């Protein structure tokens, strides 16, 4: 109902208006009448900015191809598959490539195979800094690709990551705004090192479930009254509002009807989702109701606190900018404090 033009993103390679916020190409945001529209534009620009370029996509694909060839020459009946953020197009620059070796008879699900492949990679110089982690719940080989520097994980004979990737891809296709908000929340958590499951952080699939259920249960979205892509700014703040202040982590679990429609259920209705600690995030695995996707997230307290902090930062900046003059707005960013991107400068044109 408000006649504000949120499209028309300018692709010309202008120098960033403020080196602190390299995703801002111009001051066009600051002309927005409403601060939430300004934030929406910044989110779109930032997502464009951190999305991989053609070159990066090609480099990653060739790493995977090279590895797949190597594995097939070692084990002709096996194949290397990608899962995780790499296969769902939700990866941040420099994130790991998650792969899994799969064969028909699940022949390579053993320690001998783990060490055999790790030796093979070393001998053929396919990886440096190779670590073989045999004692973990999911044994893996971790290494760095010598040509590109990408970090690669190889696990064995587990296809649940592949099915999860299929589910995520279908959610993204059917849910405008999901990809954008997930990228922002991922970046937010990764800057604060709260996105690694082995240190109690929030894993990629859990982040997706939080954003997806938030969008799919939002009163304005379930009634079709807003287009999420036009309202990313408000929605991002409301995401942090929900999980930073309001969500009843002690009582509520996120679950999925028919693997697609998110719902809330009381934790007590599924014993598998209860934990000794009541303040614990519970997300019922859409593929397996006995599994809590976020069972490794034992640092919920810091995650909740950081979400609350993000809410405060965003709304305070909104109030400040709402009162500011045009001159005071120049070079400013609403999103900046939340995502604090410290990567090398990227080229907008091929992003």
């Amino acid at each position, binding site marked *: 109902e408000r006649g504000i033009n949120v499209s028309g993103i300018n692709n010309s390679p202008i120098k960033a208006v403020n080196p602190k916020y390299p995703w801002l190409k111009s001051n066009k945001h600051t002309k927005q009448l409403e601060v939430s529209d300004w934030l929406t534009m910044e989110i779109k620009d930032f997502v464009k900015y951190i999305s991989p370029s053609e070159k990066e996509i090609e480099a990653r694909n060739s790493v995977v191809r090279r590895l797949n060839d190597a594995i097939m020459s070692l084990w002709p009946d096996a194949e290397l598959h990608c899962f995780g953020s790499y296969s769902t197009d939700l990866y941040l620059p420099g994130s790991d490539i998650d792969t899994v070796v799969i064969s028909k008879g699940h022949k390579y699900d053993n320690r001998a195979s783990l060490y055999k492949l790790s030796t093979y990679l070393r001998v053929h110089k396919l990886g440096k800094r190779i670590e073989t982690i045999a004692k973990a719940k999911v044994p893996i080989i971790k290494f760095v690709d010598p040509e590109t520097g990408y970090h690669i994980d190889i696990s064995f004979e587990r296809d649940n990551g592949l099915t999860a990737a299929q589910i995520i891809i279908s959610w993204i296709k059917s849910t405008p705004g999901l990809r954008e908000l997930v990228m922002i929340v991922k970046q937010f958590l990764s800057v604060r090192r709260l996105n690694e499951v082995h240190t109690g952080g929030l894993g990629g699939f859990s982040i997706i479930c939080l954003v997806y259920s938030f969008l799919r249960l939002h009163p304005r979205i379930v009634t079709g009254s*807003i287009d999420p892509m*036009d309202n990313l700014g408000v929605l991002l703040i409301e995401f942090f509002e929900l999980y930073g202040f309001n969500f009843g982590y002690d009582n509520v679990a996120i679950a999925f009807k028919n693997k697609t429609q998110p*719902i809330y259920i009381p934790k007590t209705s599924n014993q598998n989702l209860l934990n000794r600690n009541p303040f614990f995030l519970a997300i019922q695995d859409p593929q397996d109701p006995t599994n809590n996707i976020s069972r490794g997230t034992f640092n919920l307290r810091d995650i909740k606190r950081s979400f609350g902090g993000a809410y405060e930062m965003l709304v305070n900046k909104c109030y400040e900018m709402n009162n500011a003059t045009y001159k005071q707005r120049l070079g400013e960013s609403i999103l900046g404090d939340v995502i604090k991107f410290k990567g090398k400068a990227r080229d907008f044109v091929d992003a």
Partner: protein
Amino acid sequence: NNCPDKRHYNYCTYCNSRTHSTDRCPNIWRSYIVKKISHDSSVRRDMYPSGLIFCYNCGHEGHFGDNCPFPRVSRTPNINGSAFTGENLPREFRNLYRVRLSEVKRR
């Protein structure tokens, strides 16, 4: 109370609220760009999101977290209200939502 500005500080002339000042009104950022839709109310009534209204506080179906009849679980207060309230439904659904809420309470 020796702060002369306190009363002024906690009053919003925009929404007549005493929980915040005008320059910190949530409406400054919670302003949606709403889709243009048909005003045929009979069509819209069928779109009432039955089965899609869940409570972030207790996990039950039928009401939003801000309207939960059970004690609040989160230790952080919810002073100004959130996105998950019947008030955030489009106007034509708010009455039906209120009616259904009171029906549940009576049962």
